[in-house]
């Protein structure tokens, strides 16, 4: 049987990817350029016994998301720009209370209302550090419509596996462009469900580390009673200020990601074997970079691309290794140098770093990247 295909926007593909992953709950507040996710799920979720709710604002939506996730459902929200700012306190709540969920944020111009219909990549740091306090972050960067579908599935898998909020950060171009996609067959992609308790309800503790760094999570309403708070807490979920618990808990929550970094970090290396120039790109900008690298190769310029698929945790190890090898990095991004900062941190002065930065609502074109290659010495 031939596969079901469609000609979809990134946002529409995200909605269908969520359904594939088993998402049964969406809470959101519509905002350009992410609204199509809500539109599709408002129609599709009721058909599979799921719930769609449009809340009074983004704060309420994020709160509802955490509630739905604690009730045992795979939960998604979509937003953009100011919506991501509004969700931050509750994203932090999701981090400390260890609630699996997926935050799909389409990057548009900012800060504030900015350029609502223009593309941007300026939320990468907001995803990482927008909520206060020490916490781990996972953020994925799709570059095509098919990849948006597949990455939403992966985002749910990571959220469920590590019991934490996971970000997916398409830029407006990926979110709104249309491409042919194949809907995945059941079983074609891995789908992970959270670990649930095997102990009887009376013995259950929601943060019991005897089961490892990611304790099983019971669904509210399944007979397991437990306490959830934004305060630092004891294994049973009740608040504590005891130093030994607070320190150990904070470290464990970050270790869930750092100890599994090789599994979480995904990337693509394109024509890098003998490259002297490495373009580091992500999202739609990586498509300009691929075009530019192909053009450069035709002219005999030894260029390649490192495409970031997992932005957080950052691919430190890979960039460090490349810094030993290449003469220079070119970092095109639709912000004023956010990824460049990370490259600088990893390269430690061992390679030249040249940013190409646009925040005018226009994409970075291949010509700009080719031009910049002339500056690599």
């Amino acid at each position: 049987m031939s596969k079901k295909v469609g000609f979809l926007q990134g946002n529409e593909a995200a909605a269908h990817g969520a359904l594939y992953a088993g998402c049964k709950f969406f809470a959101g507040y519509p905002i350009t350029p992410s609204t199509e996710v809500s539109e599709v799920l408002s129609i599709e979720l009721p058909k599979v016994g799921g719930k769609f709710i449009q809340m009074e604002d983004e704060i309420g939506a994020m709160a509802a998301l955490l509630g739905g996730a604690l009730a045992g459902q795979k939960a998604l929200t979509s937003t953009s720009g100011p919506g991501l700012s509004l969700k931050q306190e509750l994203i932090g709540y999701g981090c400390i209370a260890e609630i699996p969920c997926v935050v799909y944020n389409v990057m548009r111009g900012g800060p504030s209302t900015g350029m609502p219909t223009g593309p941007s990549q300026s939320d990468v740091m907001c995803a990482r550090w927008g909520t206060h306090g020490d916490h781990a972050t996972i953020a994925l960067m799709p570059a095509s419509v098919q990849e948006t579908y597949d990455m939403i599935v992966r985002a749910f898998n990571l959220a469920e596996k590590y019991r934490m909020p996971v970000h997916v950060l398409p830029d407006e171009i990926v979110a709104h462009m249309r491409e042919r996609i194949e809907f995945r067959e059941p079983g074609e992609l891995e789908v992970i469900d959270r670990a649930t308790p095997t102990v009887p309800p009376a013995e259950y503790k929601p943060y019991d580390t005897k089961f490892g760094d990611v304790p099983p999570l019971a669904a509210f309403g399944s007979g397991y009673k437990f306490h959830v708070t934004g305060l630092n807490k004891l294994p049973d979920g009740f608040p504590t200020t005891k130093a030994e618990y607070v320190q150990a808990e904070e470290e464990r929550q970050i270790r869930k990601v750092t100890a599994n970094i090789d599994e979480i970090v995904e990337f693509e290396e394109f024509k890098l074997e003998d490259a002297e120039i490495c373009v580091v790109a992500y999202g739609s900008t990586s498509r300009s970079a691929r075009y530019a690298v192909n053009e450069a190769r035709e002219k005999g310029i030894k260029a390649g691309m490192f495409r970031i698929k997992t932005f957080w945790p950052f691919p430190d190890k890979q960039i460090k290794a490349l810094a030993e090898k290449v003469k220079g990095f070119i970092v095109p991004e639709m912000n004023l140098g956010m990824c460049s900062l990370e490259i600088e941190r990893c390269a430690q002065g061992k390679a030249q770093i040249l940013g190409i930065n646009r925040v005018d609502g226009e994409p970075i074109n291949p010509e700009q990247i080719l031009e910049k290659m002339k500056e690599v010495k």
Partner: protein
Amino acid sequence: MARYELRFSGAGGQGLITAGIILAEAASIHEGKQAVQSQSYGPEARGGASKSEVIIDDVPVDYPKATKVDALLALTQEACDKYSADLKDSGVLLYDTDLVTKLPEGGFKKVGFNIINTAKNEVGREIVANIVALGAMIALTGVVSRENGLKAVLSRVPEAFLELNEKAYAAGFEKATAAAK
């Protein structure tokens, strides 16, 4: 075929994004080529310069936006002024003769007819001006076959409007063919 870039431009609300989607579907789903459709628009629901771009290739399309445009549709003077600078000399400009009176300079072929008026008075509804324009763009570029273009149109529109859209598509195709001679 090599990478081929088309741009549909005009004002918000003229259905240019839909025209782009239909062409890209014709290429990608009905003709088995690779296609990407993208758009840029302002915060307004109506008015303001709007464009929809379609890139068609035999190999996967990397950069999803136009670099050097092969075929441009301009349904307003504003869009024509704003979006014609990167039209190739070997390319083609299709314009509405009532609305675009000042043509850009360049070696490209210029083909015009009264697109919106055709939709309004000959086909019967101004709302199908985008389909008239789509038929015309396919006639001028041959980027997909006439049949596959029509298939894509008919698979996108509601049942009650099949005939209207088929008529609009045919009118655009024939008028552009005649105007190009």
